[in-house]
């Protein structure tokens, strides 16, 4: 009985307070969106934070680690950098290290990557007929790293029901909670 005290709050709310709660919810969502878009502008990357999805960069990065990316055009790509790239036609970004690089006078660059934990380079992963990666394939370069935090995202992807549960629960909590 004590656990449902908060529902009494809802019954006591009149129309204006309910409206206020919904607006509150909207503010939280827009603030989160603003922070994300702001990060995108500051880092020049379309995806400033990514979660590592595979074990191909172990022991440096494990599944579930979080990477902070930047992608400034004035910052040249060099060997040894950890780049996050997408293969044309595939959704999933790959996090590997640049192994080989050739750059022309005008700045046009082509490079080859390899995962630290893989024994061969990535040519087998590229699109058929593609031997090199170019600047346009790069989503960002890894500049910072935090371990484990991304596990939540992986859990939510692997178990979609869990994702809906969490989102629903959070939404309900914000709408109902008075403070």
């Amino acid at each position, binding site marked *: 009985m004590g656990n449902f005290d908060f529902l009494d709050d809802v019954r006591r709310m009149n129309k204006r307070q309910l409206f206020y709660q919904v607006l509150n919810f909207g503010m939280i969502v827009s603030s989160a969106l603003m922070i994300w878009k702001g990060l995108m502008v500051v880092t020049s990357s379309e995806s400033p934070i990514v979660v590592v999805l595979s074990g191909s960069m172990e022991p440096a990065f494990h599944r579930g680690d979080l990477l902070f990316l930047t992608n400034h055009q004035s910052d040249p790509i060099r*060997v040894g950098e950890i780049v996050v790239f997408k293969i044309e036609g595939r959704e999933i970004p790959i996090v590997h290290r640049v192994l080989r690089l050739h750059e022309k006078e005008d700045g046009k660059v082509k490079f080859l990557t390899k995962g630290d934990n893989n024994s061969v380079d990535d040519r087998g992963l590229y699109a058929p007929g593609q031997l090199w990666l170019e600047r346009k394939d790069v989503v960002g370069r890894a500049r910072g790293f935090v371990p484990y935090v991304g596990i939540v995202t992986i859990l939510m992807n692997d178990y979609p029901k869990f994702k809906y549960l969490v989102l629903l629960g959070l939404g309900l909590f914000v709408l109902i909670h008075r403070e």
Partner: protein
Amino acid sequence: MNTVLSRLNTVFAFTLSVMAALTFGCFLTTAFNDNLSSVQIETFKHSIKSGYTPYNERSERGNFVFDLHADLNPIFNWNVKQLFLYLTAEYKTEQNALNQVVLWDKIILRGNAALLDYRGIKMKYPFFDDGNGLKGHDNITLTLSWNVIPNAGMLPRIFGDGSTSFSLPVQYSNR
């Protein structure tokens, strides 16, 4: 604070805040290290062969053996999980203004031996050029760099203090 649920909630929130603060502290205390160290590299037995890459492109393949001496122990601290070392050959050709090829790499985890004293190491990755600019090239620079992988924080790439230059012969070798 009088139900199990609200107590669990508070404990959980507190744990998360403490862990976040600790992680940030870990990052902040080592963010300004320069991670430098001096390195000596020497190369021997330079040769060049003509051949095909695994993708059937006609190309030239350079080869050499190297010695490496460096002490990387001072770089390790509580926030360095591993060092990813890579040996880069950098040179300029007619076709490309900049070429960088990683020929050898190594992972050193914290706790493993970080005093490098290698002799006669062979290249791990083939030394192909994009084109035919290697034959007789007289200014290929070899540097050792490392990528510092922290427990949490920035991922800097540092050039070792010390590099060597060498040239490849004009004649193809048949061996």
